[in-house]
C-alpha cells in the first residue's frame, strides 16, 4: 500500500482571510518576522496496489475535478515515501 498526497492551495491572487487571521496572531505569540501566511488543504490517499503511472493519472483527474476547484485553487500530487524507507535514509 502506498500513500499519495494531494496539496491544495488557493491561487496566489485569491484573498485568504484564514491565512491572514493566522498571520496576525503570530506577533501575539512572540513570533516575529512572518510577513504572510496562506492556509491550504492536504489530502492523504492510501492507495491499494502499485502507484504506477495509470494510478497517478487517475488521482490527478480526481484532484482536478473534485479535491480542488481549479477556478480558485492550485494543487500538487506527490507520492509519499513509505515510512521505513524514510527511516533508513536518516
Amino acid at each position: 500500500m502506498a500513500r499519495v498526497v494531494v496539496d491544495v492551495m488557493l491561487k496566489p491572487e485569491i484573498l485568504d482571510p484564514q491565512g491572514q487571521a493566522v498571520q496576525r496572531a503570530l506577533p501575539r505569540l512572540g513570533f516575529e518576522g512572518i510577513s504572510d501566511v496562506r492556509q491550504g488543504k492536504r489530502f492523504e490517499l492510501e492507495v491499494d496496489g502499485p502507484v504506477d503511472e495509470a494510478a497517478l493519472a487517475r488521482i490527478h483527474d480526481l484532484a482536478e475535478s473534485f479535491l480542488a476547484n481549479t477556478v480558485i485553487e492550485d494543487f500538487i500530487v506527490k507520492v509519499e515515501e513509505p515510512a521505513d524507507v524514510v527511516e533508513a535514509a536518516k
Partner: protein
Amino acid sequence: MTARIGVVTFPGSLDDRDTRRAIRLAGAEPVALWHKDKDLKQVDAVVLPGGFSYGDYLRAGAISRFSPVMETVVEQAKAGLPVLGICNGFQVLTEAHLLPGAMLGNNHLHFICRDQKLRVENASTAWTGDYRAGQEILIPLKNMDGRYVADDYTLDKLEAEGRVAFRYLDFNPNGSLRDIAGITNEAGNVVGLMPHPEHAVEPLIGTGRTDGLPFFTSILKKLVNA
C-alpha cells in the same frame, strides 16, 4: 394545470420546506425531489435550496455536485430547464459549472445574518421577470461562504453581457467581487444568488415585506405562458 416546480433536498439542506412554501404561495405546485434520485418527476423547473449540503465538507456545494439528481439537473439545465440556486444552491451551481466563478468563505470569517438590500440588475431571466431592472429589494441573507470570486476576464464578460443579475447595495456583506450577489447563465434559465427570497414571501415573517415573492411568480408566469 399549473406549473410543477421541483425542490431538491440534499443531506444538510435547510430551506427546502420554506422554498416549497414560497412556490405554493406563488400559485405553483411544489414537488419534493431527493438527491439520490435521477428522476426529476416531470417538473417544469428546479430550485436548489439553501443549507449546508453534505456538511459543506471539502468546499460548499462540492460534494452535492456529484449527487445522482445533479447529473440530470445539469443535463436538463443545459437544454433549457429553468434552475434557481439559492445560497448553498448557488454554490452547487458554480461547482457544477452551470454558472462561472466560485464561492469562498466570507472575507471577515464570520457567519452573517441580516436583511440585505439588493439591486435587481437583470429583470429578463426566467426567475426575475416580475421585477423591474434597477428595482431595489430587501431580502434576508445568511451565509458563511458567500464571497463570489472569478477572474477579471470572467467578471468583465458577466458585466458586458448583463449577467450580473443582483448586486449588494449599501453594504457588501462578504467581500464578493464587484458587489455581486447573483448571476445568470448566458441563456437566462439558470440563476444563482446568495440572499434568500424564499424567506421574504409573507408580511408576517422575515423582513416584513414580500420582496422575494416575484422570483416564484416570475417563473410561474414564464412557464404558464410558455
